[in-house]
């Protein structure tokens, strides 16, 4: 399991890091917050970059859902079709993770194509 770190990086640094990973020949995916309801910790437009080794950069929550998003991202890298994920307190059974803050967040996951 890769170490999960939450550096204080801006969203632009996320894409710079993803670009760097891609230039090194890794497969990559990008997760973007496209909607929030209630007290979600990261605003719309926040991004998480993922590589095929499970390395993460940036964030789409306060650390509650990044692991689950990364697992989905690895499947998106394999299959190609983007996904929309939704996390909230009511979705704990569906995703096995929830937001402790009680908010709801929608995340778009896409892979970086060649």
């Amino acid at each position, binding site marked *: 399991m890769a170490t999960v770190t939450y550096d204080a990086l801006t969203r632009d640094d996320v894409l710079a890091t993803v670009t760097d990973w891609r230039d090194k020949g890794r497969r990559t995916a990008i997760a973007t917050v496209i909607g929030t309801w209630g007290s979600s910790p990261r605003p719309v*437009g926040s991004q998480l970059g993922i590589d095929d080794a499970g390395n993460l950069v940036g964030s789409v929550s306060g650390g509650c859902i990044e692991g689950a998003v990364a697992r989905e991202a690895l499947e998106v890298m394999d299959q190609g079709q983007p996904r929309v994920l939704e996390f909230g307190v009511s979705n704990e059974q569906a995703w096995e993770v929830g937001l402790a803050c009680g908010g709801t967040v929608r995340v778009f996951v896409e892979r970086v194509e060649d």
Partner: protein
Amino acid sequence: MRAELLYRIQAARAGRQPLAVITRISDGAQGHCDGDVVTGALRLGDGDLEAVRARMRDDNSGMLAGGELFVHVHAPPVRLIIVGAVHIAQALAPMARIAGYDVTVVDPRGTFATTDRFPGIALSDEWPDDALEILEPDARAAVVTLTHDPKLDDPALTAALRSPAFYIAALGGRRTHSLRLERLREAGFAETDLARINGPAGLPIGATSPAEIATSILAQMIAVRHHRPVVPGAEP
């Protein structure tokens, strides 16, 4: 996302050009907009295109009406221009960079503005008025003077007041600040101009060390950027 678009976003950021990426979330098809037209795999109607432009103006990412298209606005980073490569600047510059600001430190005194003291930070050894003429602070820029020296601070504040910078602050105690305001008043600035200067710089959190004072200034800059009330003229 196509790799070509990823590189385009980086290039726009480097060139300080705004760029919006529009994504159809059902299949991931994407286009991008430079503020005028949309290029790429998507064709937008006039209403959607106008909504994209409005979101770019407001730096406001979100779904368009209809729930099909997501607009991600990549605005150029907000800038912070620090005049005075002093000890407080050594704390403020890296802190502001972590907070997402593009930081430039200006100081014509060569022994202060060195890469040893400011690793990875953009430096200028021009006189502050010349530097600000080159840097052209816009409404997404902040100017903070830290030198205490009227020879350096005053030209910087004069240039900042003639710009639409969203945050202007000057370090110095109350007496220093009132003398500074007097000089700027004599130079022809109106009270409404002078009221734009946050002085003494920073929020009143009892800051004493350089890092604490940098924290108080960064916090005040964030508050002003997000239109929160700040305590005017408070001691840091």
